[in-house]
């Protein structure tokens, strides 16, 4: 007993009274959010934060049923999380909300109730997006009617719902504009007014994508005013101000013959300062468009040429590149829980972080 009392006194003297870690705010650029919809237990979605420079697991958030993805505010102080809850676990009344979390304490600030119809699907970045000025949060709905929920982040209130029948997802193009993709390959261009209501909501007269021969995936990435879509076969379609530019291929004729093609859940990433595009690549036939890859090919978007191939430590299904001048590349796969971290310029493997979630989906830079 004497020994125990001594140990206890020593421990009490060595450690501060009950305390909780506070995180830097805004979240450093080399940190990354790993979103997890926890497929075997969908009621308990979560998101995890990792410091890419050290591999330290920095914290986590609970994000409800069928967790989608966190959307950081432009100032890096708040995280917006579209979430779904039921009054009795998996039964009872369904309530959809945008939960707001404080990035310094990973604590709940408040919630904004939205129509209980946000889309439940394999999470994509285009499920929830901010307008360019950060004012409006846009959330894709599917029940299976299609629409877009608009939330005003200034007033922290539901601002309205915009019809998008036949068209899906959200690709912002400005402070008050975004487009959705329609089932026939047309675009639905929406312009908002300053209250978040639709000022205009116009479909292109003709399809801009051929959805039959070689459809583009919905996993596009953006540099400036251009969204880059990739097709199943590896053609890049730049969409600038609502107009599709000439397509170019990620692959040479030989690589195509060797059945190289892009694939994955978050299959593309970009680094805006160097204008580089990163694409997960694998060898496989048609309809392997969701397969992971063991290589990431890097392209100069100005020259439309490949500048690098990065060999991956593990299967890569989702990649993200940090936004800073000395970027890191993060990689994970939904069937694994190992986060791999690379120097995004040299391609050098730096470190792995194990036991990161259950079914990790999309990676979000702060």
């Amino acid at each position: 007993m004497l020994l125990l009392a001594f140990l206890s006194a020593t421990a009490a003297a060595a450690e501060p009274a009950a305390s909780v870690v506070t995180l830097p705010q805004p979240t450093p650029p080399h940190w990354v959010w790993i979103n997890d919809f926890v497929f075997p237990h969908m009621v308990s979605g979560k998101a995890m934060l990792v410091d890419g420079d050290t591999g330290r697991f920095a914290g986590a958030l609970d994000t409800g049923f069928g967790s989608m993805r966190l959307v950081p505010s432009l100032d890096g102080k708040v995280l917006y999380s579209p979430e779904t809850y039921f009054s009795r676990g998996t039964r009872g009344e369904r309530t959809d909300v945008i939960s707001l979390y404080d990035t310094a304490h990973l604590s709940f600030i408040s919630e904004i109730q939205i129509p209980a119809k946000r889309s439940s699907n394999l999470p994509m970045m285009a499920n929830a997006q901010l307008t360019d000025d950060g004012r409006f949060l846009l959330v894709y709905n599917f029940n299976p009617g299609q629409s877009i929920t608009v939330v005003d982040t200034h007033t922290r209130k539901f601002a309205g719902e915009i019809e998008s029948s036949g068209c899906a997802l959200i690709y912002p193009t400005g402070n008050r504009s975004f487009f959705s993709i329609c089932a026939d390959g047309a675009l639905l261009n929406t312009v908002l007014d300053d209250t978040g209501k639709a000022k205009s909501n116009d479909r292109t007269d003709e399809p801009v994508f051929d959805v039959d021969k070689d459809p583009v995936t919905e996993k596009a990435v953006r540099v400036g005013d251009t969204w880059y879509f990739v097709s199943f076969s590896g053609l890049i379609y730049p969409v600038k101000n609502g107009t599709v530019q000439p397509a170019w291929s990620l692959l040479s004729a030989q690589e195509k013959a060797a059945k190289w093609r892009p694939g994955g859940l978050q299959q593309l990433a970009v680094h805006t300062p160097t204008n580089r595009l990163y694409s997960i690549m694998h060898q496989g036939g048609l309809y392997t468009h969701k397969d992971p890859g063991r290589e990431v090919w890097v392209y100069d978007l100005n020259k439309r040429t490949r500048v690098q191939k990065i060999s991956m430590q593990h299967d890569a299904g989702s990649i993200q590149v940090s936004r800073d001048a000395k970027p890191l590349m993060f990689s994970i796969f939904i069937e694994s829980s190992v986060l791999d971290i690379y120097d995004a310029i040299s391609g050098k493997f730096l470190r792995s972080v194990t036991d990161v979630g259950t079914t990790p989906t999309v990676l979000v830079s702060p």
Partner: protein
Amino acid sequence: MRWLDRMVEGSARSMAKRTSRRSVVGYLGALLVGASAVPLLPVARGATPPPPKTDDKAKQVDDPTSCDYWRHCAIDGYLCGCCGGTQDTCPPGTQMSAVTWVGTCHNPLDGKDYVISYNDCCGKSTCGRCMCNRNERDTPLYIPFQSNDYNWCSGNGKANVPYHCSTARIVSVAK
């Protein structure tokens, strides 16, 4: 087309019983459990000779609890046959989604292509058994009714939106 569904399923089931590796393992398992009090294992082994060497893949094509089952060519989720239901029925206490995505799968048993409806079973948390993801003719989310990435329990009456597992029901012969 329910009659066709039943007919083809019956054929597939009996074929599965004859040839499936899983059914052989299940049979052996039942024998072993029943015999656990007495040392009958060698007898059980002797009574059930190993199946003839055939292509495992070919067997799994006929097994509704296998990801390689022919109807599963565009499925993405947990197989209801592993969760208390079958390839065309939902487990007890769940609800079948009214709308869903469809795929077209080739049945090597009769050489025909079939339109398959992948109705999700809803209202309980995820089953978590026999995860299967195959993407033949799967389309992106902007073409919803051929996309296996949606949770098709969405908007489903009282069970909106908890997903439990996925079935693979025959709709018709593809033309």
